[in-house]
């Protein structure tokens, strides 16, 4: 995959939050929410960012949308005019045309739709704000968008309260698609939904991607969902990517001990596979006071002296993955759902 196909290329992204104390509000330290994160997303590709609460996956996605100002780093976005712009350094006034091309789907379909607006107003708002078309063409576009997310056009004049969680999430997706974006950032888009509805939304997202050539940055904690949507997966731990690999490789042959433990902890919906779990000891490290060396070493069952002093960097493996572990090449870690 050459750089020319990348919709997004994030280089050495950092987001530090200052910790202030005392009368003078002096900065006494930093919460390193995102610490030196790099990845790319190709056109038509889904990259998932996974990890546990506080790992920095949501902060990363916020920085990409410039809902947060990154501390450091480059966020290269390829516009529809085939021009590369650095989202991280753009002035606010230059952001608006760019935001048409990057949209977001939110986790909670109950709080992300304005209850006082009709479905047609919600989906049409991005068109109105960007002064696209007249009333008639906008209505036509709204009708098409409802078709795309498989909702009846008759719902146009109803209010969000009349809809179920799954239907609301479809409305949110229609709104995100209104401006024909190239990249959609979806932050836990199905985790608030019931299982039977979750499947519908996952399938819809897959279909839309195939039809419209969308790229997704999919932020999630549920590895089962991630397996159903991703081409590649990046695993984050305390602000850093510890492993990034094609989906099948990551699940079947993880190279980082944290990935192995995460996979092992996922309950498998089959009582005949009550495997012996790797239960991690202790808690996720504090991002304002990360352990020296590899941040995962205090919980790692493979840690050696070197892990306590030297920070591992992401390095390529034979399988086409990148992994930040000193012992990656010598450990034979267990995955799930081996390629059969």
């Amino acid at each position, binding site marked *: 995959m050459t750089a020319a196909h990348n919709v997004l290329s994030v280089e050495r992204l950092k987001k530090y939050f200052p910790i202030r104390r005392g009368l003078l509000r002096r900065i006494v330290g930093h919460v390193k929410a995102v610490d030196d994160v790099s990845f790319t997303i190709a056109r038509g590709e889904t990259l998932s960012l996974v990890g546990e609460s506080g790992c920095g996956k949501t902060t990363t996605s916020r920085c990409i949308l410039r809902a947060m100002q990154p501390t450091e780093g480059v966020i290269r976005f390829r516009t529809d005019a085939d021009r590369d712009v650095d989202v991280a350094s753009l002035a606010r006034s230059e952001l608006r045309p760019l935001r048409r091309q990057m949209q977001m789907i939110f986790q909670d379909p109950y709080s992300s739709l304005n209850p006082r607006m009709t479905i047609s107003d919600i989906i049409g708002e991005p068109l109105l704000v960007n002064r696209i078309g007249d009333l008639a063409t906008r209505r036509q576009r709204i009708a098409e968008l409802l078709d795309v997310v498989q909702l009846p056009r008759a719902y146009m004049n109803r209010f969000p309260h009349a809809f179920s969680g799954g239907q609301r999430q479809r409305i949110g997706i229609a709104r995100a698609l209104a401006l024909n974006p190239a990249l959609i950032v979806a932050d836990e888009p199905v985790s608030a939904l019931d299982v039977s509805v979750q499947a519908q939304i996952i399938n819809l997202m897959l279909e839309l991607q195939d039809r419209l050539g969308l790229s997704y940055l999919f932020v999630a904690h549920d590895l089962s969902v991630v397996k159903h949507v991703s081409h590649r997966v990046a695993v984050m731990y305390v602000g850093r990517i510890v492993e990034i690999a094609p989906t099948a490789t990551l699940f079947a042959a993880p190279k980082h001990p944290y990935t192995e433990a995460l996979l092992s902890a996922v309950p498998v919906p089959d*009582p005949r596979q009550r495997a012996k779990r790797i239960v991690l000891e202790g808690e996720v490290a504090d991002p304002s006071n990360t352990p020296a060396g590899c941040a995962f070493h205090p919980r790692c069952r493979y840690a050696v002296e070197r892990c306590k002093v030297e920070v591992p960097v992401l390095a390529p493996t034979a399988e086409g993955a990148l992994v930040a572990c000193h012992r990656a090449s010598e450990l034979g870690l267990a995955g799930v*759902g081996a390629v059969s």
Partner: protein
Amino acid sequence: MVEPILSVRDLVTYFRPEEGVVRAVDGASFDLHAGRTLGIVGESGCGKSVTARSILRIVERPGRVEGGEILLRRADGRVVDLAKLDDKSQEMRNIRGGAIGYIFQEPMSSLSAFHTVGNQIIEAIRLHRKLTAKEARERAIELLQLVGIPQPQQRVDSYSFELSGGLRQRVMIALALAAEPGILIADEPTTALDVTTQAQILELIRRLQAERHLAVILITHDMGVIAEMADSVAVMYLGKIVESGPVDAIFHAPRHPYTQALLRSIPSVLAAPRSRLATIAGSIPHPYARPPGCPYYPRCHSFMAGVCDKSTPPVNRIDAAHEVRCFLYGAATETAA
């Protein structure tokens, strides 16, 4: 088979707000045995949490247990029907937290922010057992140790907000076990937790169950957690148990069309990457717009017009332990097959 420690028969809990009736639990029956885990699984609004709250008699108004029996076998061999007890009676108070311990999803809102975790556990211990303050404190430290809290001598004096989500849920479990109950009800105990913390908590519940021969009711929407933990499973849909049986039968020989569809629609780490999921058509009906007959018929792929939408399907027995509430398995169908 040994006598069940808890036997729920035709439990009916309705909510009657001014706008109508919500049949939150509509005729649920199941047995719970010492040392075993019963998993109750279902999607939102299926009545799984209200079932738990009915057993504990903490259903909020305008909800009320309106029928059925909740037969609890006490330590002295007496059988008490909790459905007949006044929810504020002394006996119900003794049972709640005494004979039946419980943990809920949100450890943050279930613990007081104004009292140390130790004082909360001590209070629970002394409510149910005659111990001096000093003895109760020692017991509290033992309990914190039991649930795997590091440095229990120090942690006993910390406040809940000083603890992480995983430690808080451990404190909740210590609190639930304070009076050495025979039954533990865990309502979505790991839903708010990260997956590695979830693995720790499930492991802990399993260990405690084995050590203390606890009967556990585990309520969750997560089929993975059920597969991992349960001995037997009850699948609920809109207030009814549509299918119940041993965990292996539920996962490998499910009979009810809802159970079958639910199992097909769950994402799995074992699936092929980017594979489409089977879906269930439509969505869960609004509680006021509950379909007549079998509540699942509008979404069911085996719907029989004139049957499923007319009357409520009876409980049909597949074998001694496996029951399904569906017309497909009626006596007539069996002879035909």
